[in-house]
């Protein structure tokens, strides 16, 4: 799509794109290419000398058990977040779609947690489950269940999943509700006249028609769990106990910033870039059919 009517000017258009392009080069393209460059170098910790080592850094990370474990942790984490956030929000959206009176009030009250930062969501749930002051942890103790996520890896994982999914419910809710409201009502009414129960109508009509929305949300939730949940992990567990919640993004930060392993961290960055690029391509191939950029 192109404009028929355009302005002609020698230097004005370059001036207009200049700020965006300058920022992109300085803070995006240059650092990313540096990451690619460093991923094939072995540097000493003082940054005094670097030698070309080919793919050795990649071989290193993919034979490192901690890194393989981190991939596994990331997969478990992002799938759990996606499944929990999507199922809860689908239930709420299906219910909100039925409501006539007070629909706006429900909607407002369900979407606002999107404004809460992932790091703040982390603080909220960290406080509730804190083994010494958290009220949920204390009630569990009364019921005879010992909760201490700083010692128990499974509990730590559950806690970060809950905190990350809690915030993402509202995002999913908004898109599911929009998807539901876009389904033509005559479909549902015809099925109702034929005697299909509400549950049957949902599974045979609504749910299949909602599948494009659901597919889009799966991708968005995985992107969120991969890249936007650093704050949740950093606040609640710091990747621990013994790497039980050490997701890939946290590990890049930890190895590069605290461990100063430049080559290894850069190689991990490159792996993450490949993941983002694939996810973005999937997302755009899908959106292409819906929106025309």
């Amino acid at each position, binding site marked *: 799509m192109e404009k028929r*009517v355009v302005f*002609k000017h020698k230097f004005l258009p*370059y001036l207009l794109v200049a*700020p965006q392009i300058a920022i992109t080069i300085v803070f995006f393209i240059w650092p990313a290419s540096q990451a690619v460059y460093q991923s094939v170098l072995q540097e000493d910790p003082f940054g005094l000398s670097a030698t070309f080592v080919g793919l050795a850094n990649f071989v290193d990370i993919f034979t490192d058990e901690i890194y393989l474990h981190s991939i596994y942790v990331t997969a478990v984490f992002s799938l759990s977040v996606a499944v929990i956030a999507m199922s809860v929000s689908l239930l*709420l959206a299906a219910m909100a779609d039925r409501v006539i009176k007070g629909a706006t009030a429900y909607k407002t009250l369900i979407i606002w947690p999107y404004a809460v930062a*992932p790091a703040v969501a982390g603080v909220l749930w960290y406080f509730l489950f804190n083994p010494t002051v958290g009220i949920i942890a204390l009630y569990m103790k009364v019921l005879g269940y010992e909760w201490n996520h700083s010692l128990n890896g499974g509990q730590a994982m559950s806690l970060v999943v809950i905190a990350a999914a809690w915030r993402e419910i509202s995002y999913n809710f908004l*898109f599911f509700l929009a998807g539901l409201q876009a389904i033509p009502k005559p479909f549902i009414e015809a099925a109702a006249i034929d005697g299909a129960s509400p549950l049957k109508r949902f599974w045979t009509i609504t749910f299949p028609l909602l599948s494009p929305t659901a597919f889009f949300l799966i991708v968005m939730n995985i992107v969120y769990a991969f890249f936007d949940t650093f704050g949740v992990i950093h606040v609640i567990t710091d990747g621990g106990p013994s790497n039980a919640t050490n997701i890939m993004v946290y590990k890049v930060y930890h190895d590069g910033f605290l461990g100063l392993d430049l080559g290894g961290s850069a190689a991990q960055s490159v792996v993450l870039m490949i993941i983002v690029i694939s996810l973005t391509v999937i997302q755009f191939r899908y959106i292409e059919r819906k929106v025309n950029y």
Partner: protein
Amino acid sequence: MVEHRPWLTFLTHAVLISGMLLLVFPIYVTFVASSHSLDEITSNFSLLPGSHLVENYTRALNVGSKDVGATVGTMMLNSLIMALGITIGKIAISLIAAYAIVYFKFRFRMFFFWMIFITLMLPVEVRILPTYKVAADLNILDSYSGLIFPLIASATATFLFRQFFMTVPDELCEAARIDGSGPIRFFFDILLPMSRTSIAALFVILFIYGWNQYLWPLLITTDESYYTLLIGIKRMLDVGEGQAEWQIIMASTILAMIPPVLVVIFMQKQFVKGMTETEK
């Protein structure tokens, strides 16, 4: 509603109300905790509001937690400067870049377009160290420019404006040109006023995005006077063997939520528009 089923209507409301309670519960507990004294929180925590509300918030705002070295008031101001800087910066540079790409024919137009597109694929999280190094070389660690500039390039905002400009009728531009207005005049007098709703929608989304930044400020601020509120809260939690000052932490957490939540509640229409149009 298709048919009358009283029990189903009842179930609908029951599910929605329990969903809302699930969402509100952690925040309610946090709020209650911010109204108790530290003793009340650690020894016998009650789920009813306590009597230390004003005391905790005034202390947080004016003094802050021990060992952090900055008051919550200062940190909120830093968060606000960062959020507004990112929001306004992103909108401004994306608007003019999209204007150039849509309304001008020039060499490398598509090349620039794809260059902007690439930023979509490179979140801070995947290029932590080299970006930090750039910021260090430019000498913008511990500064507002360092908090703002690396985050203001945005492919989504540019796409949104590009898409909107495409829907603006060509006749408007023709008419403007016949009346003798140049590109700058057309931009300020016609295009900018027409873009108001898109700008408002983006403002809401980007303000939340900016206020909630965590990883980047964590990397580049070591000087307390540039801490944003989220970083400050994390520092308050890191007390090692000591006792965390929960009442102050909880008050700060509530304060950290207020600005973005208010923006969502009061600009809900723009928020929903922004979410569904930027797809992120």
